[in-house]
């Protein structure tokens, strides 16, 4: 079976304020159902790599292959669609739209993708909320939730389009250890039960130890 995500010789430079070679010949593979964490010191390029893998950052050289398809040269609008079909995101910060209800926040990416009608999407969104044990908060404004709850809603949002990969940029970075454990358990469960691959950038050693594989980075190289 082909890997879900693959890169070949990705290089990236920052030019501002001075030219700086952030990523050097990055080649990696992410298998289906695999739970991988990326670790490394601050500034080693791990987040930069994640945003390239997420297709949000298109300013690089090399090849990015998602689910067997080379997406390195797609237009921004096409990438937006590919992204919402294949990749779910969880960030360190929750990025919920504060004026909308929890349910609406989860539904928006699916509404935009437009694969299902409004009713089905609502049903799906409620299902995702249930997986995360948040179904009672569905009609609350997102701004009224606690930090841990917000992060769980953000995960539910990442799941709404049934992506093949969940990417996380320090999803537990802002949470206490209890909530961090809950988030890890949820991700683990999703990976096992919904056949999703996980690619999580983290600083948290305890978190990383529990994953299937750790990619360690230093100075723009993958060292292990």
């Amino acid at each position: 079976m082909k890997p879900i995500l693959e890169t070949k010789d990705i290089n990236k430079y920052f030019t501002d304020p001075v030219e700086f070679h952030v990523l050097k010949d990055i080649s990696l593979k992410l298998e289906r159902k695999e739970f991988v964490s990326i670790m490394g010191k601050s500034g080693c390029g791990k987040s930069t790599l994640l945003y390239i893998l997420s297709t949000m950052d298109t300013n690089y050289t090399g090849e990015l292959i998602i689910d067997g398809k080379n997406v390195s040269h797609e237009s921004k609008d096409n990438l937006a669609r590919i992204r919402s079909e294949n990749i779910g995101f969880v960030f360190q910060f929750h990025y919920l739209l504060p004026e909308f209800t929890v349910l609406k926040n989860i539904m928006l990416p699916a509404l935009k993708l437009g694969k299902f009608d409004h009713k089905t999407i609502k049903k799906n969104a409620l299902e995702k909320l249930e997986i995360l044990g948040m179904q009672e908060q569905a009609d609350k404004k997102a701004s009224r939730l606690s930090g841990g709850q917000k992060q769980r809603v953000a995960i539910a949002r990442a799941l709404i389009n049934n992506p093949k990969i969940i990417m996380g940029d320090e999803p537990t970075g802002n949470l206490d250890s209890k909530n961090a454990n809950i988030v890890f358990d949820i991700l683990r469960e999703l990976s096992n039960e919904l056949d999703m691959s996980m690619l999580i950038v983290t600083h948290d050693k305890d978190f990383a130890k529990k994953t299937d594989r750790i990619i360690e980075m230093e100075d723009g190289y993958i060292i292990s």
Partner: protein
Amino acid sequence: MSNLSIIWDISKTHLFSKKKQTMVAALGVTFGISMFIIMMSFMTGLNQLLDGLVLNRTPHVQIYNNTDPTETQPTDSYFNAATNLNYIHSIKPKSRLERIHNALPILSELKKNKKVNGATPQTICKVFYIAGSNNLNGIISGIDVTQEARLFNFKDYIVEGDINSLIKKKNGVLLGSGIAEKLSLSVGDKIQILNPSGTSFSLSIGGIYQSGMAEIDDIQSYVNLKMAQQILGAGSNYISRIHVKLNDMEDAVPFSKLIENIYDVSAMDIKEANAQFDTGSSIRTLISYAVSITLLIVAGFGIYNILNMFIYEKMNDIAILKATGFTGRDVMLIFIFQALIIGVLGAALGLGVGYGASVIIDNIPFNSEALPTVKTYPVNYDPLFYITGIIFALVSTFLAGYLPARKAKKLDPVEIIRGQ
């Protein structure tokens, strides 16, 4: 749910969660639009009033007999001017009557012309108004009063009495208000007049005429056409002027040239007679447009500022929308929709406020000696101002929204997310 309706939904939610800012931005537009409508309605109302003062009552073409010296002297046709040098000293105009030759046929020809709305004859005689030992000199015009009323709003200038008194009584007169005041006469009184050859007539005052211009009101009175001819001791074909009203005022210049070419008369068009009025009203209109457009532009900057702030506040939302599959165009549309919602709300309110204020102005009493028929401030309710207002509001809010929206379109979500 289609793409646009999601975007619409997001725009709406954003705006309604910021009711105060939305209101302030919309009120900016409201203020601009309502001021535009008030200014234009009031200004053009005033213009129409002033134009009406002169233009409505001024015939589009006046036909009369000129008493200029003839351009080709008889000597020139007898001794060929090309081979001879003829000198005639001290040329004087020939004594000619002020009447128009063949006035009645010309009048009936004019009435048949398709461009002509109507044509009325006038017979003008110079008279003295007599009151005791006082003699006031003045002019009496004989008119066809029903036609004058129809074509030149003659009725508006009769401040007392009734114009039909000219028809009811053969010797009825509509006396100039200045004369009436000086001779302390009022409706129902008799007045003696002397014609140039010294014959006196007794006229019965059926009404008071006030044009609003003192120099006219002090000398001018009106009688029936027949009466004027009788004062002059002339027959019913004695007509000194023909006033023509055309269907389209713009035809006045070519039409007056045509008349001069066909008939042996002089013709003066309204542009020649009232050149300064045209200039005055067009400049006033220009000024009101300039002021109103400035107001709307200021409102546009208000929207621009508020949307710009919105976008800074909504950086995170923009980033996450883009990260979860919304394109740059979608994000741009969200903000353009917001601008247009503000524009439509503000414009609708502005039309209401503008109309309301116009109605109020229209009911404020305004009495002026010069304008006897005007009781309140003049307001012009031309729907064109309302349409222009809406269009301008939508265009300016669109532009004010477009610039910030384009910025939102270009925002790089990675930069925002990583910047946290």
